[in-house]
C-alpha cells in the first residue's frame, strides 16, 4: 500500500470511528433501557467494558509485536509494541477509573481487593513499568530487546484478568459466560456497537501513534547522518 492510499484509508477509519462514537453515545443514553436495580449509573458499563477491552487488545498487540521483534529484530515491530502499549495504558487507566466510579454507587466503595480489580491493577502497573523501562534505556536495539522480553512476560496477566471472575469468587459482574451474554436485546446491541466502535478507535489511535514513532526514527537517522558528515555537532 502506498502512502497516499494509506492516508486515505486512515482518514476513512477516522471518519467511521467518529460516526461510530456518535451512534454509540445515542445508543448508550437513548436507545438502551434503564437498568432496573442500578438505574442510570449502569450506563457507565458500556464504556467501562469497552475501554477495558481496548486495553487488553492493545496488550495483545504488544505481545504479538514483541514476539515478532525478537524473531526478526526489525524496528517496525518495536514501534508497534510501544505505540500499542501507550494506548493500552491510557485505556486501562480509563477502565480502572470508570470502574471505580461505577463501584461507588453500586458496591458503596471506590475500591475493593476483588480478584478482577486486583489483577487489573497489576496489569496496569506492569505496562506503566514497561513504558518507564523504555525511557530508562538509551541504546535503541537494547531497549527494543529488553522491552520485547518484558512485553511477552507481562502479557501473562491478561488471561488471568479475563479469567479472574470465572476462577475465583468475586463481586464483579460476569458479562458473558458459557451460557451466553447476561444482557437483554437492546442492551446487548448497544454493548456490541460500543465494542466495535472502540476497536476502531484503537486502530485510529494506533495508526497515528505509530506515525509519531516512524517520524521520530527518521529524525534520529537523519541526525546521525548529519553528525557523521559533521554538519551537526
Amino acid at each position: 500500500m502506498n502512502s497516499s492510499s494509506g492516508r486515505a484509508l486512515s482518514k476513512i477509519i477516522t471518519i467511521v470511528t467518529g460516526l461510530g462514537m456518535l451512534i454509540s453515545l445515542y445508543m448508550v443514553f437513548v436507545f438502551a433501557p434503564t437498568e432496573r436495580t442500578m438505574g442510570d449509573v449502569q450506563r457507565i458499563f458500556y464504556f467501562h467494558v469497552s475501554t477495558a477491552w481496548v486495553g487488553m487488545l492493545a496488550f495483545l498487540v504488544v505481545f504479538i509485536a514483541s514476539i515478532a521483534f525478537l524473531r526478526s529484530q526489525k524496528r517496525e515491530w518495536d514501534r508497534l509494541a510501544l505505540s500499542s502499549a501507550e494506548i493500552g495504558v491510557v485505556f486501562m487507566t480509563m477502565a480502572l477509573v470508570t470502574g471505580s466510579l461505577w463501584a461507588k454507587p453500586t458496591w458503596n466503595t471506590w475500591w475493593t481487593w476483588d480478584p478482577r480489580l486486583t489483577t487489573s491493577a497489576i496489569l496496569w502497573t506492569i505496562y506503566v513499568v514497561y513504558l518507564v523501562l523504555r525511557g530508562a534505556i538509551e541504546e535503541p536495539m537494547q531497549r527494543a530487546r529488553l522491552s520485547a522480553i518484558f512485553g511477552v512476560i507481562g502479557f501473562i496477566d491478561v488471561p488471568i484478568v479475563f479469567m479472574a471472575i470465572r476462577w475465583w469468587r468475586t463481586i464483579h459482574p460476569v458479562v458473558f459466560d458459557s451460557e451466553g451474554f447476561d444482557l437483554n436485546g437492546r442492551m446487548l446491541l448497544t454493548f456490541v456497537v460500543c465494542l466495535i466502535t472502540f476497536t476502531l478507535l484503537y486502530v485510529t489511535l494506533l495508526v497515528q501513534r505509530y506515525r509519531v514513532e516512524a517520524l521520530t526514527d527518521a529524525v534520529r537517522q537523519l541526525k546521525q547522518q548529519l553528525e557523521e558528515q559533521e554538519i551537526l555537532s
Partner: protein
Amino acid sequence: MTYLFIAYAVFWGMTFALVLSILARQKAAERELSVLEVMLNRHATGMVDDEERTADETRR
C-alpha cells in the same frame, strides 16, 4: 447521575488529551524532520559553503 457524568467526562478528557498529545508530537517531529532535510540538502548542494562565504565577506 453525577457518577455517570464524571465517568464519561473522564473518558472524553483522557481521549482528547491522548489525541492532542499524539498530534503535537507528530507536528514537532515533522517540523524537526523538515529542518534537518533542508540542512542536509543545503550541504549536499554546497549552499552552506556559499552562504558561509557570503557571511564572511559581509563581516570583513
